[in-house]
């Protein structure tokens, strides 16, 4: 009785081990290579539960998803002799696990292969172009906050024939050619993740940026002074205009007043010029003769005529007494 139980348990165990060895699961994220005594026999890309010959065949799994690859910064001399550091970045996947397994075996070796292939492609392609060709992506007009910089940039302008995207595409094509479908690898994408001057050149770039900005600052300063002078100049001109206009109008008015007054006087006085000169003369005596005046009069005159007597003119006596 007890022996039977043991036998059953052992049988179950054997069956379990047999099943475990003959069945395997390929996860949605994986793909598998079946090897027989270490020799690859087939690729399994179908996901789900599969059957293999137990004990004789082994399963090796490879990732089916897109895998990562990141490069280090490497120094490259561009065609226009600029010293730059470039780091690239790629995505790849194992499309033929069988040939990947036979040629490289493990993923780490795949990464190693890509190090060589991509980095040499980047170096070859980037060094064949001037820096701006790699840096820029179009011929769009650069905009600035100051006209001066815009003009300065316009003079340095170079026509971009390819640009970043096309050059990256070239790197990808070159790297793909080197892989030659031999390794079961598909290079999905290559991108430039980092591009800049090498550290030794950067201080010079900073100096240039600095001097450019200082120049602009000075320009603003002098522009301000120029506009100030212009405003103040216009102001002075306006002041002169206003003041002289005022003077002109005022003087015109005064002149007119005088002219009209003269006309009024003349019109009236021409009616009796004798009376006018008589009255006016008398009036002037009042003002011209003062205490300091030394007046010497002759008895010949009309006024003192009578001081000498009445001999000559009786009529005058009459007149005198009449007063």
């Amino acid at each position: 009785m007890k022996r039977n139980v043991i036998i059953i348990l052992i049988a179950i165990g054997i069956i379990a081990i047999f099943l475990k060895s003959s069945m395997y699961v390929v996860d949605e994220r994986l793909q598998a290579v079946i090897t027989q005594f270490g020799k690859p026999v087939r690729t399994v890309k179908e996901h789900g539960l599969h059957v293999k010959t137990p004990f004789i065949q082994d399963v090796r799994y490879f990732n089916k998803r897109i895998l990562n690859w990141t490069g280090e910064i490497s120094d490259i001399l561009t065609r226009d002799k600029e010293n730059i550091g470039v780091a690239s970045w790629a995505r790849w996947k194992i499309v033929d696990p069988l040939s990947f397994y036979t040629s490289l075996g493990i993923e780490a070796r795949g990464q190693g292969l890509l190090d060589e292939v991509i980095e040499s492609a980047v170096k070859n392609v980037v060094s064949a172009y001037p820096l701006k060709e790699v840096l820029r992506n179009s011929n769009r007009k650069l905009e600035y906050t100051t006209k001066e910089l815009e003009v300065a940039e316009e003079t340095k302008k170079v026509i971009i024939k390819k640009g970043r995207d096309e050059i990256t595409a070239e790197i990808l094509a070159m790297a793909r050619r080197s892989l030659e479908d031999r390794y079961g690898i598909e290079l999905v994408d290559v991108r430039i993740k980092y591009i800049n001057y090498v550290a030794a050149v950067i201080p010079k770039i900073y100096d240039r940026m600095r001097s450019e900005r200082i120049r602009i600052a000075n320009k603003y300063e002098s522009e301000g002074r120029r506009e100030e002078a212009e405003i103040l100049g216009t102001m002075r001109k306006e002041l002169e205009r206003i003041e002289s206009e005022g003077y002109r109008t005022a003087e015109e008015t005064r002149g007119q007043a005088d002219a009209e007054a003269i006309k009024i006087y003349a019109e009236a006085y021409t009616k009796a010029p004798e009376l006018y000169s008589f009255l006016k003369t008398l009036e002037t005596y009042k003002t011209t003769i003062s205490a300091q005046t030394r007046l010497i009069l002759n008895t010949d005159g009309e006024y003192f005529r009578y001081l000498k007597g009445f001999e000559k003119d009786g009529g005058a006596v009459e007149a005198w007494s009449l007063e």
Partner: protein
Amino acid sequence: MPDYGPRRKQPDINFEQISLQPLKKFLPPIIMLLFIIISGYSAFYTVKANEEAVILRFGKYKETVGPGLHTKIPYGIDKILKGEVKTIYNEEFGFRTRQRGNTSIIDYEFPEAQEEKLMLTADLNCAEVNWVIRYKIKALEEYFFNVRDVRETIRGISQSVMRTLVGDLSIDEVLTIGRIEIEQMAKENIQNGLDEYKCGISIQSVLLKGVDPPIAVKDAFNAVNQAIQNKDKIINEAEGQKNKLLPAAEGKKEQAIREAEGYYVRRINRATGDVKAFLAVYEEYKKAEDVTRRRLFLETMADVLPKCEKLYIIDKDLKGLLPILGLNEEGIKK
């Protein structure tokens, strides 16, 4: 099952000796019960409110389920992959936010981020660009099945995209005028890149978190801003002076004109008055010309002559009187 051991032991000590019948009778049901309990326990799983779960049956994708309590086939037949689909994830570039207790500190000097931020612009200037992208998982199956290292992929693509954009902009555009465009373009381009790989990621936003000139040249850039402000100040002051002086001058002008007009009125009125007076006098004068004339003359003399302190009346018959009067003396004095 903590009580499993003792129960196994019990038959050895007690039941075996007393009777094998109960063991024969009870063992299969007990095993069955245990099997059911274990199965039942591992046949349920919960998906949290912010999660979804992908179910793989024998490694093959079966379905994606939402939050709640679900059943599965246990013993590794159904495999559950859960992911937070409602969570917004952040990736920072050029800086890192470090949590310290309740406060978070933005560290712009984070060593590994330095390489991320220093970028070359189209006019071969350098700019430091810090940015953040926010994203969430939009398709959990894609997220799990298509790309192995999704986070690293997002980081790589956004750096490459940002550098490509900055590499096609002027330093001024990067620092000031082009920032909104950068954010929009970056979002679009990063999304396109991720969609090409079918990452199952949706970029929510790309935010520039401070774009600066490198520290070494910052003062020169500040000098420009200061110069702009200074220029405005100078101009404003000049305008102010102009606006102060011109109206004052206008006022003075108006005053001068009004005064002249006043003079005009006065002059005409006086002339008219003078003339009217003269004509009135003339009217009367005409009536007794000779007498009036005499009277006016004498009146004037009476007025004028007393004012003179030195009045000499000389007979025309006397000669050589002038030296006696000391007129010569007076002449010398002059």
